[in-house]
């Protein structure tokens, strides 16, 4: 499988939100147009979170920089991380979410989505969002349709090589400062490490917390980030974990099939052994307190309260035949 990644450099991001707009344009995702239709977020971040029509947002967070001037302003990319082993795809009961063989991205087949929202529960980054009107899950697809048109191309960051218009995700294509790139994951990781080394060693404004995100998290993701400030300031989990229940859920389908098949097989054998079974016709005489076989007249049971030839001291016990009711 080819292995591609979206590269995001938070130290270059200007939070222009061009990526948000490009994503909406390419994927034909509407925005509220009414007056004050967007709820106030008290931040430059808008909308406040991902939603059924918004697959990517720029996360804003201001933190004290321990200096007399300025702040550490973290601009984070909040969108699908396209995990190597996506928990969303593993719990998807309809196969709507699956790993794309060409890129490694997690594709969404809308026609297969049944809107169960299990993916939303399983995602360690809380990314998939439900589109109520369409009853479908919406999340970043990595613009696989664009990439398929142009074919994945290698992006040589910093060399000025022009990116083919339809060969990269819409967000990458739109990014004015070049904070977003797309290409083979190895190459994106190399760029990320180079950039982190540069940020840490910067002579005027060194960034001791600079790190690469997405290389080791969850065994790797297909979004590789350069984070200038601590991870938490970008709205990202420092140590994302897949809920272990997702693994158990994966076992349930084969287990159910096996259990049902074993039950049917066992009952099939039971049915065959029962073929030809004939049950005796029985009658209970409530006056004599006797249960008799109507075909043979044999007394099968007699109350121990009634002494007689078939019911001695042990009464009911002795009266009960070894063979009862069928042959």
């Amino acid at each position, binding site marked *: 499988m080819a292995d591609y990644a979206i590269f995001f450099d938070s130290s270059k991001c200007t939070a222009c939100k061009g990526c948000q707009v490009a994503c909406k344009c390419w994927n034909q995702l509407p925005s509220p147009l009414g007056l004050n239709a967007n709820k106030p977020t008290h931040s430059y971040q808008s909308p406040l979170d991902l939603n059924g029509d918004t697959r990517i947002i720029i996360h804003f967070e201001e933190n004290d920089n321990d200096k007399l001037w300025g702040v550490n302003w973290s601009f984070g990319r909040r969108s699908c991380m396209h995990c190597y082993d996506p928990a969303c795809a593993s*719990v*998807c*009961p*309809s*196969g709507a979410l699956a790993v794309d063989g060409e890129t490694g991205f997690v594709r969404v087949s*809308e*026609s*297969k*989505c*049944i*809107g*169960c*929202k*299990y993916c*939303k*529960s*399983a*995602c360690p980054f*809380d990314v998939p969002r*439900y589109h109520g009107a369409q*009853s479908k899950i919406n999340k970043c697809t990595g613009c696989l349709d664009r990439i398929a048109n142009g074919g994945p191309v290698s992006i040589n960051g910093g060399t000025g090589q022009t990116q083919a218009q339809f060969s990269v995700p819409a967000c990458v294509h739109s990014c004015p400062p070049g904070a977003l790139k797309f290409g083979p994951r190895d190459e994106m990781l190399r760029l990320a490490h180079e950039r982190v080394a540069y940020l840490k060693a910067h002579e005027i404004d060194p960034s001791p917390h600079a790190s690469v995100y997405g290389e080791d998290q969850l065994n790797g993701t297909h979004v590789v980030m350069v984070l200038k400030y601590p991870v938490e300031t970008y709205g990202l989990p420092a140590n994302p974990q897949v*809920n272990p*229940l997702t693994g*158990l*859920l994966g076992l*349930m*389908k084969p*287990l*159910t099939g096996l*259990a*049902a098949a074993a*039950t*049917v097989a066992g*009952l099939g*054998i*039971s*049915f065959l*052994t*029962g*073929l*030809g*079974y004939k*049950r*005796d*016709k*029985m*009658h*209970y005489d*409530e006056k004599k*307190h006797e*249960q008799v076989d*109507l075909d043979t007249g044999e007394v099968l*049971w007699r*109350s121990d309260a009634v002494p007689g030839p078939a019911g001695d001291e042990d009464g009911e016990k002795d009266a*009960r035949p*070894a063979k*009862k*009711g*069928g*042959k």
Partner: protein
Amino acid sequence: MTRYIKRHTLQTRITHDVTVIACILLAISGLFVFVPALNNLLPSSATFAIRMAHRVLGIVFIAVPLISAILAPKGVKHLLSNYFARWDKDDVTFIKRFLPYMLGPKRVHMPDQHEVKSGQRLADGVLFLAGFLIAISGVFLLVGTTFVTLDAGLMLFMRLAHDVAFVLFAVFGIAHIYLGAGVFQPYRRMGKTMFGNGMISESDALYHWGHWARETIEKGDKVVEVEDKK
């Protein structure tokens, strides 16, 4: 003339039968959610309709027994007293012989039973528990995917509980149908009791629930004589 014993009231039969139909339809509609291959056979609008039907049927599955229980509290008390009745020697023997009997009814003969067989108590007990679990988890899944946003971990747990309960329900439900519908030769005509007029012939009652049949015939109030059809 054939004597019959009234075993199940009309309310019991309606409750049972509606729940059974809901269960079967729930299983079928659930499979379209559970199995991608089935889901992919149909257009998304059809699978959406099936998923919505699953929810409506789920409400029927929960509401019908609840309403029935509210309408007949004495019946619930009677049911519970039967299911939690103290086990006697025959009950234990029944369980010990159950598997050999299922695989050789001509060779193995079962002891007399009270109104609810000991095996029935265990199997139905699992069905009740699985039904309860599937209902509770189903409510959480319905509410958490429709009305409010619940904790992601809780939703995954509820889905696992729903799946585990379904496995139990499927296994014991198939066995219940095998015996209850009279597919197993010695259980022939059993299906008519719940899906028919609620009566069981004296002979069948003596075969399946010897203690209960004799006690009921002695009392006489639930015994009906019907002229045989020529």
